[in-house]
């Protein structure tokens, strides 16, 4: 019988692979708003359109697979978040990554490819993808720490505090969920603003 750990490994590989592709393609899409001075690295409009679609599909696949990766990781883990800060942080970073990537997908679907014609929004979208990828990489790094006791984050010149965490009470968490839900609903119910492009 195939255990949860095997499913978890497979799902994590899909999530990390698709989200890495999505992040790279998103960064390249900045060329639709800003001309870069180096001609060698300037892509054609057709290539940029393809990159935009690849970024979107990669992000959608990652967002769809992420809950499965979290669930199988929960089943496969030896300890519990009660006695393991790393495991607790893995939950928190998973939540952050899921939030950022869901917002990324939603924003891109909301405005379509026109998003890249607006300089401010395109910068915002790229910053969102970078934040989301940092969270995703942190989750993967914690997985490495838990299983092998080491991760590639160890060789980075800066320090990410994976062995420390912020614990808030379940009551406050539920209050935050309520605030977030109200914020989302009020945003969605507000009138759609016309998107201003560079021209």
């Amino acid at each position, binding site marked *: 019988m195939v255990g*949860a750990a095997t499913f978890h490994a497979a799902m994590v590989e899909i999530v990390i692979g698709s989200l890495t592709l999505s992040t790279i393609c998103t960064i390249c899409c900045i060329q639709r708003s800003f001309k870069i001075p180096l001609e060698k690295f300037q892509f054609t409009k057709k290539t940029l359109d393809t990159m935009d679609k690849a970024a979107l599909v990669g992000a959608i696949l990652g967002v769809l697979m992420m809950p499965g990766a979290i669930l199988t990781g929960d089943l496969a883990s030896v300890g519990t978040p009660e006695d393991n*800060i790393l495991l607790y942080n893995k939950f928190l970073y998973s939540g952050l990554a899921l939030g950022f990537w869901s*917002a990324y997908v939603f924003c891109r679907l909301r405005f379509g490819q026109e998003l890249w014609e607006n300089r401010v929004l395109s910068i915002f979208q790229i910053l969102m993808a970078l934040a989301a990828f940092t969270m995703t990489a942190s989750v993967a790094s914690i997985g490495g720490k838990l299983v092998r006791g080491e991760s590639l984050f160890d060789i980075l010149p800066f320090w990410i505090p994976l062995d420390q965490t912020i614990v*808030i009470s*379940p009551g406050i*968490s539920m209050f935050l*969920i309520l605030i977030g839900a109200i914020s989302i609903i009020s*945003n969605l119910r*507000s009138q759609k603003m016309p998107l*201003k492009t560079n021209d």
Partner: protein
Amino acid sequence: MKNKVIITTVIITTLLFSSTPIVANPGGNGDNDRDFTCGGSCHGDPSLSVDSDGIISIEIKEFVYAGTTTEIVVKIDEVTTSNERIVGIFLLGSINGNNDQPADYGWEIIQDENGGTSNYIEKRASINGSVHASWIIRSPTNPGTYNLFASIQHGIDPNPKGLAALGVSEKHEIEILPIPENYPSLSEDWIIPEYREIDGDGTITILTENTDNIEVNWKLSGELNSNIAEIQEIGIGEWRVFLPKTIGDSKIEFQITIFNGNFSVEQPWMEIGTENERFEGSSIGARLQALSYAIIIFGFVLSMQSWLVSTDFSDYFSKVRSKSHESENNDSQRMIFHEKYPGWLWDSVEEKWVPDIVESEIRSED
């Protein structure tokens, strides 16, 4: 009718997927006090278990005075395990299937290999298949012949049928002798604390009997040289020992030597750590906090985006553009062309003639 079939199929499928896809306890079951039934009843079924290839041996003194402390070492060698390399090791008083914990025969575990007081512990075997575990135990108070067994259970690799490997040692007989009069020993009421409190001064209290003095040596795990600890007598047979605090998972090893006149008894090496900072997280708290982060981030991003779309940044961009135009104009005003000196420009800021590179290039192309 068709709807009923669909609903039934959905319910069955949901139930099938909701079952935990795990067999036995491949990640271990945790240290605890367990009878041999844990390893013997379920896995004792030949269809659920195989014999372990590990060689189990027990090391303990052949005779022990009643009610005194001694060390028992269980060695497992050449064992083939699963990839996790986890081996569960039992210290047992019998292998009947129930009431086989050492405590059922008068033994008292003062400390196990992992710092607790369990008769079943889990350890990872080395790559070459060796794993050792030791228990500090207090012998029964009634003299006589007692038996001790060691048992192991672990996974195997490859393991297509999901079987557990089981192994049991030979019976090990120990002679418990009547304790001599005035024999110095640790008190029956004393058990080594698992950890020292993080807020405390790092001291531990030791209770002894028939003792007029004690000496405690300590060293960090793995060190060869030991140090002598400071000791304060706080009552009859009650001693406060000052041991350095440790950080994180590191532990300190210490050995108590008990004196009564010229007679001394050396106790086995024991270990103690310092309590880690309290972590007050919970499983449900982690899940709720993660969900709240996801929803808050999603809401925040949507709000930011709505604000960015509704805010007019055209003024800012036009200012940036006009600034760049200004700098271009300034450059063109700085260099003044003079008909008398073709190929040269007058730099009005530096106040000197400079070659007109553009005109030179046009000429060279011609």
